């Protein structure tokens, strides 16, 4: 099923579709404007003895770019997504198993990491993995005038002075992960995080998640 959110002043139009692939245990596609990411989850499945952890599940994240082989940039994005997922999944319920999360970039038009985080969260929910909270990703940028833009496009990202991506959890509205690029003052960073936590963004994304789940349980 598909649902589209209406565009507000600061967010591009976003949409999500779950259970679209037949082989993985959970899958979701998330679109923010023109940026689109497809996520698939396999697990809890068998794990190689070299990678198994005795008391919790081994989470592996793979980000495949649209063109070419994954490089260093994808590895650093994978680390961000993996740390966010490990903070919200209850990994101790499946010791000595593996969870694999594969993210395929369909199109990158800005705010790629936050789109990956949102797609990952929807896919983990679709797979029915036990989680302690949901999370969502938000990107914001400061342009040359000092204006803060949320959910920037690729052109806005290129011209920006600083770029920040946050992963926020749904229960306590705390930051799970933040990735920053560029130079900005302490005051600006506080303003950016406050804007990211604005109730409209929180409300949009999490109410949206609720709406999505509502559709699948008629």
């Amino acid at each position: 099923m598909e649902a589209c959110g209406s565009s507000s002043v600061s967010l591009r139009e976003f949409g999500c579709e779950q259970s679209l692939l037949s082989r993985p245990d959970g899958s979701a596609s998330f679109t923010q404007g023109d940026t689109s990411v497809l996520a698939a989850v396999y697990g809890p499945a068998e794990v190689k003895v070299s990678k198994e952890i005795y008391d919790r599940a081994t989470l592996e994240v793979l980000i495949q770019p649209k063109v070419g082989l994954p490089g260093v940039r994808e590895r650093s994005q994978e680390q961000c997504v993996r740390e966010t997922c490990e903070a919200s999944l209850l990994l101790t319920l499946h010791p000595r198993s593996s969870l694999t999360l594969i993210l395929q970039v369909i199109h990158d038009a800005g705010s790629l990491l936050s789109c990956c985080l949102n797609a990952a969260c929807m896919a983990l929910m679709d797979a029915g993995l036990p989680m302690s909270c949901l999370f969502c990703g938000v990107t914001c940028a400061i342009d040359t005038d000092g204006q803060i833009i949320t959910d920037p496009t690729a052109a806005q990202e290129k011209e920006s002075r600083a770029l920040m991506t946050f992963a926020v959890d749904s229960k306590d509205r705390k930051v799970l992960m933040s990735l920053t690029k560029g130079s900005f003052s302490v005051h600006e960073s506080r303003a950016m995080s406050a804007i990211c936590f604005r109730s409209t963004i929180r409300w949009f994304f999490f109410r949206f998640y609720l709406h999505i789940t509502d559709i699948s349980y008629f």
Partner: protein
Amino acid sequence: TTTTTHVSEAEKVGEVLLPGDEFCFQTDDTISLTDPGRPEKVVCGPGLRRSGDRLLVCKSGVLRHKQPNMFWMDSQQRRYVPAKGETVIGIVTVKSGDVFKVDFGGSEQASLSYLAFEGRPRGTVGDLVFSQFIIANKDMEPELVCMDSSGRANGMGVFGGGGLLFIVSLGLVRRLLAPHSEVLADLQQLFPCELVLGMNGRLWVRSSSIQQTLVIANLLQSCDTMTAQQRQQLFRRVAQGAL
């Protein structure tokens, strides 16, 4: 600042809940020695975890309640996690020593001892076996048996000639196994068939001809995501087409 909402559990039954939602019970932690009444005991099923006197939701789904005090989350899933007492269809992968290794679709293979059959264990690599979990927790290797507590087979054991094994979601199997199942009632009006339901999402069907077997398998796989009306329409169309 965090705000915790203390919502009573009765209001939430039947609602869609997400991981991170919680509700608490207004029960006392102390048990009175002089009071003849029993303290309220709540049973948490799958999808719910207890933390102190609060219940945390850990899977998204609909909250269900069964009298007098059982709560669980009704969620959709494709991957099976073994639980004690559930009957599953497994495939024998290794026959060694005095134990079979059975693949049931979980994160590791289960072991099935030769002594856990009613008569002689008859099975080779590749056979289907219908059995029940006797040990299934996150810390130990799962173990299966093909007999119940009194030592009788009770329908379990090696089977499979002439039928078709296919995979559906766990939610559909639970709907088929529920008492007074509508899906099963609709299916019984179509063709006579033999159906084995494994709670790991594997179903096996055998009917009087190969074509009917394939029709039933396709119907069950497709009615996973349909509403009741769509399903009944589909079954009616197939019944008319077959005659």
